[in-house]
C-alpha cells in the first residue's frame, strides 16, 4: 500500500469521524472541536498531495487554512460565549426553539 493512498484514506476517515462527532455530541464546545478535526483532515490531504507531487501550492494552501482556522476560532468562541450567556447552557437541545 502506498503511503500516499494510506494518508488520503486516513484523511477521509478523520473527516468522517469529525462529521460524526457533530451529529452525536450534545455539548457545544465538543462540536466545535469536531469541526477542528475536520479542518485538520483537510489539511492532511492537502499536504499529502503536495508531498506526492512536489508542489508548493499544497503547503501554501495549508498555511491559509491555518489563518482561516484561527480567525474562525476567535469568532466562534465569541459567539459561543454570547450564546451561553443568553441561554444559560452549553447543551445543544436548549438552543432549539422550533417546535417541529
Amino acid at each position, binding site marked *: 500500500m*502506498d*503511503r*500516499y*493512498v*494510506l*494518508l488520503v*484514506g*486516513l484523511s*477521509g*476517515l*478523520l473527516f*468522517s*469521524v469529525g*462529521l*460524526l*462527532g457533530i*451529529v*452525536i*455530541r*450534545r*455539548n457545544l*464546545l*465538543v462540536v*466545535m*472541536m469536531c469541526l*477542528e*478535526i475536520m479542518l*485538520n483532515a483537510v489539511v*492532511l490531504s492537502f*499536504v499529502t498531495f*503536495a*508531498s506526492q507531487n*512536489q508542489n*508548493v501550492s499544497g*503547503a*501554501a494552501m*495549508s*498555511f491559509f487554512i*491555518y*489563518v*482561516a*482556522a*484561527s*480567525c*474562525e*476560532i*476567535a*469568532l466562534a*468562541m*465569541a*459567539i*459561543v*460565549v*454570547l450564546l*451561553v450567556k443568553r441561554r444559560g*447552557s*452549553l*447543551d*445543544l*437541545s436548549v438552543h432549539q426553539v422550533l417546535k417541529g
Partner: protein
Amino acid sequence: MIEILIGFFGVLAVLCAVLVLVLRQPMRSSLALVGLMINLAAIYACLGAHVVAVFQVLIYVGAVMVFMVYTIMLLDERDKSYQQPFSKLLIPGLVAAALCTAALGCLVAGMETTTARAIDAGLFGFNRFSKVFMQNYWFHFELATVLLLVGILAAWTALKEARDEQG
C-alpha cells in the same frame, strides 16, 4: 521505515479522534484533540513537510487550542450535556458514518499507486519554502492579513453588542 512511522502516527491520530468523540468532559476532549494535532504534525514531519509541521504545532496547537481551552475553562458548567453526552441521533449517525467510511475506502482503494520515492525535505525546508511562498503568494498573504483584521473587528463588535445589550 517511513511507512511504519506514518502508520504508527496514523493509528494514534485515529485513536485520539475517537477519544474526542467519546470522552465526557470537554476538557478531556480538548486534550485528545491536542494529541490528534500533534500526531498529525508528526506525520507531516515524516513526509518531509517541516514547514507545515511547525505551523501546525505553533498555530493550531499553540493558538487555536489554547483559545479553546480558555473558553472551556470559562464556560465550565455541569449541565445536562455531561450526563447525556450523546444526542438522539447516535445510531443513525453511526450508520451514516459507517456507510461514508466504507464508500471512501472503496474510492481510495481505487487510487493509483505511485512508486515510493525518497523523502526530499528540500522543497519544504524553511529557506526554499519561504522564497517560493513570498514570490508566488505574496498577494494572498496580504489578503489573509485583511481577513484576520476583519475577524478581530467582528469578534470585538459581537462582544461590544452583547455588553451594550446587557447594560
